């Protein structure tokens, strides 16, 4: 039989992926979360300087379900989750697919600290008794997970201050080359308190407004999730959107219509925390796959 060997040999990974997604749904159901579905095609994505939405018949394919899910929070849905497709133009590599699967969940009354704890519970549930052995390293998910501030990580792994790296335009390079490879090796790592300028939809920390209440989860050097204590101040959010839009314009990137309905709903949004987790990446670490290609049925090149 000739057949599609590349697709056929992914069978065990795709079976594993299905089981992981089933365990995630089970986790949220037991926690009292409502599974929701919001439109993939939207008129006004959040303007973020470094994320490119793909145009779709005058509107855009979502880069995240964030704005619609926050409108649901504002309308009185306090615990919601969604597993959906997102699209980001030009993102392709062994850890990136331009069309990928995102898990987002939002919880009213919580902050990013509580979300770290819930993320630990979720990943433990998805990993099951097998734990995580990724690329030859055993990552202990049962013990308490490492937590490190972005500031400490720059000092420890890059030998430079976080502000200094930002001012010198080296923040992203140092994060990729010096810091990310050191995160999530012994246990998964939460790296938190990002510079205020790196969290357009995040609340600033009350006792240190130079940083935003934002964290990322890394496992085996791989970025798995991004979370915030959500910004609920509509005036501040509008100003942040305008700043991001100005940055996009300065780089010659396309502008998006302003997400007015989201901004109008924001004053009714309770204090909440929300998180976006890359399902494909989580499946990679749980199944010990070296490439994101190994955990999906089809990549864009195979269509």
């Amino acid at each position, binding site marked *: 039989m000739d057949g599609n060997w590349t697709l056929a040999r992914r069978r065990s990974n795709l079976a594993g992926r299905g089981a992981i997604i089933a365990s995630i749904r089970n986790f949220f159901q037991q926690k009292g979360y409502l599974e929701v579905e919001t439109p993939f095609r939207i008129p006004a994505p959040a303007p*973020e300087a470094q994320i490119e939405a793909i145009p779709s018949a005058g509107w855009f394919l979502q880069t995240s379900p964030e704005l619609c899910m926050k409108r649901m929070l504002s309308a009185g849905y306090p615990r919601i989750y969604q597993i959906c497709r997102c699209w980001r133009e*030009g993102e392709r590599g062994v*850890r990136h697919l331009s069309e990928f699967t995102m898990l987002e969940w939002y919880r009213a009354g919580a902050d990013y600290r509580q979300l770290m704890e819930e993320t630990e519970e979720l990943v433990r549930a998805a990993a099951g008794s097998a734990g995580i052995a990724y690329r030859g390293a055993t990552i202990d998910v049962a013990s308490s997970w490492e937590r490190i501030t972005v500031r400490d990580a720059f000092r420890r792994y890059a030998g430079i201050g976080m502000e200094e790296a930002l001012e010198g335009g080296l923040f992203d390079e140092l994060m990729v080359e010096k810091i990310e490879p050191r995160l999530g090796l012994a246990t998964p790592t939460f790296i938190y308190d990002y510079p205020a300028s*790196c969290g*357009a939809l995040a609340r600033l920390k009350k006792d240190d407004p130079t940083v935003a209440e934002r964290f990322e989860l890394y496992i085996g050097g791989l970025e798995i999730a991004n979370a915030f204590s959500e910004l609920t101040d509509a005036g501040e959010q509008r100003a942040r959107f305008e700043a991001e839009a100005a940055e996009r314009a300065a780089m010659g990137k396309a502008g998006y219509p302003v997400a007015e309905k989201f901004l109008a709903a924001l004053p009714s949004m309770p204090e909440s925390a929300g998180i976006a987790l890359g399902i494909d990446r989580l499946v990679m670490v749980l199944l010990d796959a070296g490439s994101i290609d190994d955990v999906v049925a089809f990549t864009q090149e195979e269509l």
Partner: protein
Amino acid sequence: MYTAADLRKGLKITIDNEPYIITHFDFAKPGKGQALYRTRMKNMISGLTMDRTYRSGETFEPAHLEDRRMQYLYQEDDHCVFMDTETFEQIHISEAAMGDAKNYLIDNLMVDVLIFREKAIGVDVPNFVNLRVTQTDPWVKGDTSGSDSKPATVETGYVLRVPPFIEEGELITIDTRTGDYSTRVKE
């Protein structure tokens, strides 16, 4: 012009007027941050490698390389001489630029000469070449040392390890990609 988004393994670009081939490529994008295009590339003239990281919007000049089918004629000092068998034009390539390819050059072998900006910068030899063994020690029957190979010199002067049963004067096939013995040629 290529942009950073075009970078991928195998792409040939020009940097400081020299051709480079990308040997490793990695797309990185730290959460909410900018896209970074991390490359390792080899200078196609010197063979030296370097690591470079690029950002969106950077542009690159393609390296246009031309393959010319030519015949190896002979070596002269530290140069090898090749001829286009249709035009009879001859070119010289330094031994240094030849790299490992010079291990496999026998008179009249047809090779692909790589041309960059009208200058020959190297040659591609066939994946497999047949060369005659000019020196190797005879296999001592009853050798109990357990050795499963022995050194042999072929007609180009190249020395490699061959199975014990290979004798002087025999023709062997060599995999030029690894430089290793492949098989014995029955004549």
